[in-house]
Every structure is written in structure tokens, then in C-alpha cells.
């Protein structure tokens, strides 16, 4: 079952098109890695899918519904979560408050409590630091918090924009472990990564973007073995 289908997507900022007719899809429960050089349109794709940028044309279908042009707070309600690359926590709010904001649409206190427990189980560091303001967390902890916030509503699809950016190698592994765990819980994951080899190794499938279009598509290990992909995008 397809959970997300993107067709001929054209999107960008002001007069500049970054995505020039991009197509891809994501199946339920799978991990899809999206890699490509800087400026290929990876972050623009995420922002457009999540409604932060209005697409100029093309279709974005999430669970049988065209969501192109919908605002982010509507898209959250449909069961999609998004972890931006930068500024992905509320610095002046506590860890607990950050998580509460992730579940803003839940008004029932008990339901909120259950979501909290579930996220604390997935990311125990957050429970230990729940009263701390987010700005006082380390980079790795902030990344965990950003993921935790997006997981509060148990989304069917989670978009992750460069979750390993700026993290020490040991922390990168721990973040990737959490992503695997999230995926095994049934959430489909689309992950944009600079760390292309690691991402493809973890992913069921991958896409290589270049110049705003899909250049290659295939199973993770297929792309890792592809000579052209290696030469052009994985540094030989």
C-alpha cells in the first residue's frame, strides 16, 4: 500500500524553481532514504510535502488525499510528522512542553499521558531531562527531542531532514538506531541525509535526487553498489 505519492512536483522559492517535476513514492512501513548533492532539492521536497512551501504544480497524495497546498497544522492531523533540519526544538520551552506541543491537537489529558509514556520509552533520555529547557540540551539530546516531538502523534509517515547533521559519529549511530526502532513500530520513514552510505544501508529503498529531479531509484543496497551512484554521489 502506498502511503505517499509525489508526482511531477514543481516547487521553490520566489522566482526560482528548485524541484522541477520530481516524482517518488513511499510504501507503508518502509524506510526510504533520499540522497543527493547540495542544492538537489532534498529539503525543499520535505518542506513542500509538509506544506511549508506551496507547490507550483504537481500532486502530493497522502493516504488517498491530495494534500498539495494544505497548511502544516492540517497535514499533522492527517498522520504525518516532520523533523526539520535546523531549529527543530522550541528552545525556551522545557522538554516536556516541547513534547506537549508535538501533541497539541490532543486535548484529552489521559491520551496525552499515554503518548508521553510511549515517547519516553522510545527515547528515555527525554524523561530524565523532562524539566530542562530545550536550549540547555546537548546537540544529540536536542535531536532526540525533535524526533520525540514529531512522534507524539504516532504518525503513519515521518519525514526526517538530515537527522545526523552536526552530530558526533557515536551519536549518529544512536539516532539511526532510534529510527530503525520507529520503523519497526510500523511508521514509514522518509529520511534526507548527507550521510548517504549510512542512510542507504539502513533504508529499504532509496532515491538519488539531482537538479530537482529523481535521478536514480532502487533498493538501498542496489544503489550502494551502483557504479554511477558511487562515482557521482558517494564519493567513489
Amino acid at each position, binding site marked *: 500500500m502506498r502511503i505517499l505519492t509525489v508526482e511531477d512536483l514543481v516547487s521553490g522559492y520566489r522566482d526560482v524553481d528548485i524541484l522541477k517535476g520530481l516524482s517518488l513514492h513511499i510504501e507503508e512501513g518502509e524506510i526510504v532514504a533520499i540522497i543527493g548533492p547540495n542544492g538537489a532539492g532534498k529539503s525543499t521536497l520535505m518542506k513542500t510535502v509538509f506544506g511549508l512551501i506551496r507547490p507550483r504544480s504537481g500532486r502530493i497524495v497522502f493516504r488517498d488525499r491530495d494534500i498539495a497546498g494544505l497548511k502544516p497544522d492540517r497535514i499533522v*492531523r492527517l498522520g504525518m510528522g*516532520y523533523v526539520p533540519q535546523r531549529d527543530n526544538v522550541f528552545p525556551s520551552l522545557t522538554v516536556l512542553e516541547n513534547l506537549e506541543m508535538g501533541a*497539541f491537537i490532543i486535548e484529552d489529558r489521559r491520551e496525552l499521558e499515554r503518548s508521553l509514556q510511549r515517547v519516553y520509552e522510545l527515547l528515555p533520555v527525554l524523561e530524565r531531562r523532562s524539566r530542562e529547557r530545550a536550549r540547555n540540551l546537548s546537540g544529540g539530546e536536542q535531536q532526540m527531542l525533535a524526533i520525540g516531538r514529531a512522534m507524539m502523534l504516532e504518525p503513519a509517515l515521518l519525514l526526517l531532514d538530515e537527522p545526523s547533521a552536526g552530530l558526533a559519529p557515536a551519536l549518529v549511530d544512536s539516532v539511526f538506531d532510534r529510527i530503525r526502532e520507529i520503523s519497526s513500530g510500523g511508521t514509514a520513514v522518509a529520511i534526507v541525509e548527507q550521510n548517504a552510505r549510512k542512510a542507504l544501508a539502513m533504508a529499504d529503498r532509496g532515491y538519488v535526487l539531482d537538479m530537482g529531479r529523481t535521478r536514480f531509484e532502487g533498493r538501498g543496497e542496489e544503489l550502494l553498489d551502483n557504479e554511477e551512484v558511487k562515482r557521482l554521489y558517494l564519493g567513489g
Partner: protein
Amino acid sequence: MQGLLQYVVNGLILGGIIGLTAIGLTLVYGILRLANFAHGDYLTIGAYLAYLYSVTLGMSMPAAFAAAIASSAAMAVAIDRMVWRPMRRRRAGLIPLLITSIGVAFVLRNLVILLWGNAIRTYGYVVEEGMEIYGLRITAVQLWILVSVFLLMFLVHYLLTYTRLGKAMRAAADNTDLAEVSGIDVEGVITRTWLIAAALACTGGIMLGLDTHIKPIMGWSLLLPIFAAVILGGIGNPYGAIAGGMIIGMSQELSVIVIPAHYKPAVSFAIMIAILFLRPEGLFGRR
């Protein structure tokens, strides 16, 4: 000694009015990045609406004040729909927003002059002698102002710290995009922020009108101390605005001990310049 205490009481009242109004200014800035130069005139409109309801229409004071607060809040939302929201959609920057707000300020002030004229007015209640508490003279109205200021400040604190709306307001002030991505209806939060900001400004205007008198320039002349309070407390920080308001109000009132009274307004100017030089992020801001 009692003279000094009297200045302190006056300072608390002025500081409370400034602080209350500054909360709205700083909340709006935090979420919209709008340094609203019309905020003082929101206060003026509020004071005149209370005059309209109580004196012109003869409603009882509490009913008139409640009606004025509700009307001011509605007006702020109407202005948002007509002016600020269209600019927001176009992602207008700090300077266009600021200049527009000066325009809105002119429109509002001249609207007041057009409707009520330039004359100084009062709410027309009988000025009492004031009661003596340990040699301190304080009128019932002043006591009411002091109690209301602290009550309202506590309410704002409670709202921001413990309620869903308050947390969403703080989240939107931290990062609007992330707030939307989290599922917060940011437009709804903005509307509520205007309601609160205008209600507080109107309350400040009524208090100022009760303590002194009402005139079309009242809000505009208070804008500088209000901005000074906001900057002093760290722009965007509501607790800073309360503290800043108290410090500014107190310094203005206490300054008459050492300098002539008509230099009072210069004090907030001096404090604002000093803080911009020494600690531009404000007393409670972060570098």
C-alpha cells in the same frame, strides 16, 4: 520617609500601567516580529471607548469597562485582518511593518480627535480625599488599580505557564514554522494574542484615565516608556516587560526627588539609551 513612600506608591501605579501595556507589546513582537508603534493608541482608544460607554451612554463603570475591553479586543483583531495579516502573508519584514504601525497609530489618534476632540476629559467620578494608611495617602481608585494590576499580571503568568494557549503562544514566539509543523493553528494563536494584548492595553488606558485624565495623546506619550520597559526586560519576554515597566515607572516617579518634575519623561529615555548601550538584549534576555 513618608514622602518617599508616597513616590513609591505612585511609581507602582505608573509602573503597573506601563508594565501591563508592555506585556501586550512584547507578546505581539514575540510572535509577529512587529514592533507596534500603534500600541499606545490602542490604549487611547480603549480609554475613550470606556468614556463612551460610561459617560456618554451612562453605563455603570464595571459594565462600561468590560464593554470597552471587549470592543478594544475586537478592534485589534479587525486591524489584524485589514493590515497585519495581509502583510504577514507577503512575509513583510521588520521595517515595512514598523512604518505601517506608525501609520496605524496616526489613523487611530486622529480618529479619536475627530470623534471626541482635543479636550481633556475625565470619567467624571468624584475625586475622593483618599484614605490614610500609616500616613500614606491613597485613593480607592489607586488601590483598585494596584490590586487589578497585580491580579492581571498573575493571570498572564498563569496563562503563559500552565494553559495550552499560553504554551502555544510561547512556542509560536520561539519558532512559528515549527509551531505550525507541530499542529498548532498559528493564526488562531495570533488572534488570541491580539485579544489579550488589546484587552491589557485598554485596561491600562482606563487605569491611566482614572488616575489622571484622558486625552488623545495619552497613549502616544506613554509609548516611549512602554517601549523602554519592553527593551529593558528583553524584547519578546513578558516577564521582562512587567519588571521593566515597574523599573521605568518607579524611576520616573522617584526622579522628582532629584530633578524637576517636568523632566520625568526623560528618565525612561535615559534608561532606554543606557540599556541599549550596555545590554542591548535586555536585563533578562539572552545574548
